[in-house]
């Protein structure tokens, strides 16, 4: 089995965590930042048992072979999360200018690409996440350059409609780094934990950066924005171009592919552990995710998909 290094785990987790931030529909608020800070601290505390468990020589693969219920639970979770990622993609794709109007085509194309990327293995995901993270950082810098002229510091005020507790609850329910970390540590050769703290700190910093920028730029329009991130980029023009938000499609698609591929690879790996003779596990996982996304669109339980 290919081994991952600590900085690769960091890049994978942070890249995966960035996608839901881009697809977020709730307004950014100062209370949300504080809530996210508390959620970060709580998650850091919750990861201690995982680290201690792996330090004792725990191997998830062996445990999964003996007790199938554990990997099955993870499989269901991963498929559910992958399906919600497709739902987020579908909802957010209405915000960005896609050159086709057919429903689900964006999800189908992403799934097609993921079908290929999943076949390349976890090591490839880890390597590519480093590069995708670099693209994300460059994008954020460009966004900052474009947003600064539009920013009004006096817009940074407390929100009457949000609370720290709501922000905390929101951050905890959207976080999936802990289960992913639990699975990814099994691929790590040395159980080094230098990468652990930067993951949550990085996610918090990313969320805070988008929050502060969004509030300063959008001001009162934040409440009306269906997708605050894309509302920010639609008004942030780094050059004299008219609307530069189409450029952010690149980082959006990259992060989406990374996240869905990660879920699919891990789910397929667990499926193979449980059912070694099962073939086409990657395809099955992706189709299941698409099925969950399709079912969600039929049921239209939008409250659930706020996750």
């Amino acid at each position: 089995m290919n081994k991952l290094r600590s900085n690769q785990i960091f890049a994978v987790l942070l890249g995966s965590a960035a996608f839901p931030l881009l697809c977020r529909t709730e307004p950014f608020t100062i209370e949300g930042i504080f809530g996210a800070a508390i959620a970060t601290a709580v998650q850091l505390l919750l990861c201690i048992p995982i680290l201690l468990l792996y330090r004792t020589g725990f191997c998830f693969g062996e445990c999964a072979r003996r007790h199938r219920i554990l990997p099955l639970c993870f499989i269901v979770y991963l498929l559910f999360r992958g399906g919600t990622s497709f739902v987020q993609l579908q909802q957010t794709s209405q915000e960005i200018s896609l050159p086709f109007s057919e429903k689900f085509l964006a999800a189908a194309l992403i799934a097609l690409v993921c079908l290929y990327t999943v076949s390349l293995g976890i090591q490839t995901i880890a390597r590519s996440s480093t590069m995708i993270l670099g693209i994300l950082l460059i994008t954020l810098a460009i966004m900052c350059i474009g947003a600064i002229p539009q920013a009004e510091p006096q817009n940074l005020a407390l929100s009457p409609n949000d609370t720290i507790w709501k922000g905390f609850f929101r951050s905890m329910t959207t976080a999936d780094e802990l289960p992913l970390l639990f699975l990814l540590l099994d691929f790590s050769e040395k159980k080094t934990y230098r990468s652990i703290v930067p993951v949550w700190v990085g996610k918090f910093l990313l969320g805070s950066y988008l929050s502060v920028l969004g509030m300063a730029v959008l001001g009162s329009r934040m409440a009306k924005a269906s997708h605050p991130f894309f509302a920010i980029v639609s008004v942030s023009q780094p050059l004299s171009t008219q609307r530069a938000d189409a450029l952010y499609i690149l980082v959006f698609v990259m992060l989406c592919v990374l996240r869905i591929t990660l879920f699919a690879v891990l789910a397929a790996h667990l499926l193979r552990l449980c059912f070694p003779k099962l073939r086409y596990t990657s395809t099955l996982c992706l189709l299941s995710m698409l099925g969950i996304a399709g079912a969600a669109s039929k049921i239209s339980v939008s409250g659930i998909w706020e996750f």
Partner: protein
Amino acid sequence: MQQNHTEILLQQTISPQLSVNLSKIRTIAEGSSDLLVNEFVLSGLPAALLCCEGMLSTSTMTELILKPITAIRLECPTAANVFAFIRNHQLYSIDRAEASTYADLFRFLNSGFAVLVLDGADSALVFGIQGYDKRSVSEPSGEDNVMGAKDGFIEVVRVNMSLLRRRMKTPQLKLELFVKGSKSQTDLCLCYMADRVPQSLIAQIKARLDEMELESILSSGYLQPFLENRRGCLFDTVGTTQRPDVLCAKLLEGRVGLLIDGTPFALVIPKLFCESFQTMDDYCYRPAYATLVRWIKYAAFLVAVLLPALYVAIALHHPELLNRTLLLILADAEENAPISLTAEAIGVLLVYEIIREAGLRLPKAVGGAVSIVAGLIIGDAAVASGLISTPMLTVTAIAVIAGFVVPDLAQSITLLRLAFLLIAGFWGLFGISLLGAAVLFNLCAGESFGFPITAPIAPLYKKGFRDTLTRVSFRKMQSGSFTVEEYHE
């Protein structure tokens, strides 16, 4: 049937009887007019000197071998003591060996050796006095440098070996010769620094070469697929070079080189993606300038691959990204275009590829005329007639010229450029992003004997940045000797 008989004869050992030997040799070589057999008496014993016409210098053979050998007079001559006398007391050439089978005999014969068979001896003495025509060492084509050396490999493996040895006088430089190719019997030379190279890499390469069952090896491209780990990778995981200085630099980093007789290209294993942007000139310039040039190359690669696709995507699907003046220029230029923008772009690119291929294959005398015709027809008449718009031509020209900056990636650039263009025409920036994600994953999946080709970016090795993102001075580079083994996963 006859082929089988020849194969059977080749595996036989050399007979002590000269007449039988010569008969078998003539049978094996039946139909070949270049086999020369000189029968004579050597110290009272019947002997024969064989050679392949054109493979050695006859005057050299006469002066160095025939004259002295016919002067041998031994008391009580036998085949054994005649051979012992020649081996120990007569140095007809530096390169001497013995052939015990007809296969070995013909391999030496066809390599330009002179072969001495003697009645009563069950082996043949061979003398390396090759004198076949070969190209002189000259500047390599396609890997030009401004400040680097001007010599390059040629088609003779031993000359190439000498070019390496001249630069690296340490005994740690190992040059292992072996033969591959059942029909061509091509000499291959594995080059490595014994104190730098990971031993497992050598073992893996040798194992991979042993698995090969090729009849002939006529160019480096025959071997490359056997040495590449992953099928379907868009980028090379085995490098090639024509420059001995470049190969020496790679060997010092713990890589393995493979010289192939008959081709001036050496293979380098492993190859990293970032090496495609490195040239010898980078290490001759000042660090700041070399860093600037390095970044220009990275930008040129992206421009070469993405510029036509971005142009089409933005013009068709995202015109809001352009500023007003640029958009109006574009709109005016495309006003009378008869075909769609995507078709126009693909057409221009394909025409360029045709012209490029024609320029490669045409005789030099006609090449100039092709340039004029291509320039006039494409550059002037097509634009004036409105078949192609000027912005499209400009964009394509910039992309094509940018591709020349990184010739090592020419194949990948051509394929990717067309693929991105096609997908941009259909799905705009979304399509470009999708294909970009797939290409990125494909690149990251590339491995060369356990070395990820995206190192040192992914996986991240900060030490590697000193010769990737920048080019630091040699004072810093020499501190902490670097070998590629650090990137092994």
